[in-house]
């Protein structure tokens, strides 16, 4: 059994995109995604496409990594497109054959949907590929800070993410080990009906949960021993500081939004 996981994958590098403040990247990506839904004509999408392409080129991330991201949600994109093409009750009919009816409006909506989703996925992939999980977590904690006022445990959420990222590889290794050990005892994880296979997972899941709880327990003790007490009186080794390039990025984003607004006015 082979387990491949692409969550939180980071493509290390020293491009200007990598060097940008994670907060700017996170907020910028969020802003860009919102802009995709604000734009309503092809000039707007063109602007978005050009901006994103420039970022990709600057980041030095191989495009095939980005295509992989799109491929993984290809099903959703196709589904959204098909749904819009066939079920949009548009006025201008392009094609009608038996129960199939494709309207001009449907085709346009479908095309928009595809473009938006593709740009959205690519933009978020570029961000996760160029930002280390730790920086991302820190940025998230910072940006969520205002929510603390309404008692959202932002520090705890960030700490949970940090620990989850740390333990994903460890638990994958553990899963592989347990699968092998049980296979050596004649367990079968790959054949049989769905019901049977689900039942056969017990020899894998019970040890995995027991181990995860044991790890959690030991980790909690280790954190206590190192004086962890939530974020009371806590400092950070890496202080996030905005630099010239971050200001430049913000200006570029501002210019982009003005451009979008103009395309909508025109």
């Amino acid at each position, binding site marked *: 059994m082979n387990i491949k996981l692409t969550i939180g994958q980071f493509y290390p590098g020293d491009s200007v995109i990598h060097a940008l403040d994670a907060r700017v990247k996170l907020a910028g990506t969020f802003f860009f995604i919102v802009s995709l839904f604000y734009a309503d004509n092809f000039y707007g999408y063109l602007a978005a496409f050009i901006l994103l392409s420039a970022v990709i080129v600057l980041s030095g991330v191989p495009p095939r990594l980005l295509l992989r991201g799109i491929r993984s949600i290809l099903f959703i994109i196709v589904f959204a497109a098909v749904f819009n093409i066939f079920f949009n009750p548009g006025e201008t009919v392009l094609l009608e054959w038996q129960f199939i009816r494709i309207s001009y409006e449907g085709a346009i909506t479908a095309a928009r949907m595809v473009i938006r989703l593709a740009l959205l996925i690519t933009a978020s992939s570029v961000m996760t590929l160029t930002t*280390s*999980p*730790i920086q991302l977590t820190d940025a998230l904690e910072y940006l969520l800070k205002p929510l603390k006022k309404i008692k959202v445990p932002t520090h705890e959420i960030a700490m949970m993410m*940090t*620990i989850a*990222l*740390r333990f994903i*590889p*460890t638990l994958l*290794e553990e899963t592989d080990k347990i699968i092998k050990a049980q296979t050596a005892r004649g367990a079968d994880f790959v054949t049989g009906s769905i019901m049977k296979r689900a039942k056969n997972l017990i020899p894998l899941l019970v040890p995995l949960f027991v181990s995860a709880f*044991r*790890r959690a327990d*030991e*980790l909690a*003790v*280790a*954190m*206590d*021993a*190192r*004086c*962890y*007490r939530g974020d009371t*009186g*806590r*400092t*950070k*080794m*890496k*202080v996030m500081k905005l630099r010239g390039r971050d200001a430049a990025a913000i200006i570029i984003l501002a210019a982009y939004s003005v451009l979008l607004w103009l395309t909508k006015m025109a």
Partner: protein
Amino acid sequence: MFKAEQIYFEYTQTAEEDSAPANYVALNGVDAEIQKGEFVAVVGRNGSGKSTFAKHLNALLSPTSGTLWVNGAATSKEENIWQVRKSTGMVFQNPDNQIIASVVEEDVAFGPENLGVEPGEIRRRVDGSLAAVRMADFAKAAPHILSGGQKQRVAIAGVLAMRPDCIVFDEATAMLDPLGRSEVLETVAALNGEGITIILITHFMEEVVIANRVFVMNEGVIEMDGSPREIFGQSKKLRELGLDVPHMTALAHELADLGVPVSRGVLTVGEMLFELTAALKL
């Protein structure tokens, strides 16, 4: 550094829902005094109370009765806990379950960050601690790609960055291979050389030899307390307690029993060679 006076620790555990809760006595009146700069090895069977004792030194556990003072502060007092944990660091058995961050240097920074140390100073401490355990080259690495010995050295760096007076190793070498074990032990000896008090809990009698004092624990008390030579000189008693002696000490006892004139306190190959060269007139 430490002073324990008649510490007892009891806990209750319910194994099955329908069975009555059972009371366990993990520590049964421990008395001990450890000076600053000492290197104390603690041995004993599983369940003899070693780990429970270790967790008291860091105020992770508080005695049911009796008192433990760390640098004059009683660990049972709530207000002393953070001071105690700062001065006594701990390295645990499983290297995987004590590393918190997914980048080595971020993990080393975890302790000083919790203490509220100023960012520039954290940076200096992280770099210094990683250099001290010879892991500076791995500062940006992901912990899961490291070997067991390397992970434990990262854990040690994490403790060092908190500037402790003492480090407790709770079977920290149990899951390592011989190479990893010697890496960690070298680091431990070097830290002791710099004046840090070391408490080393272990099952490997060969590791005990480098300590200057040994506690043998049994059924929740410190049964024996002395230098490695004094302790291993009593191999019969150790065997009764379910423990071993170093290979050379075992051989020395065998030889002495057979009438060959060698000292029972031999610990290493070098010492044995010296004794036998004389006895056999080589």
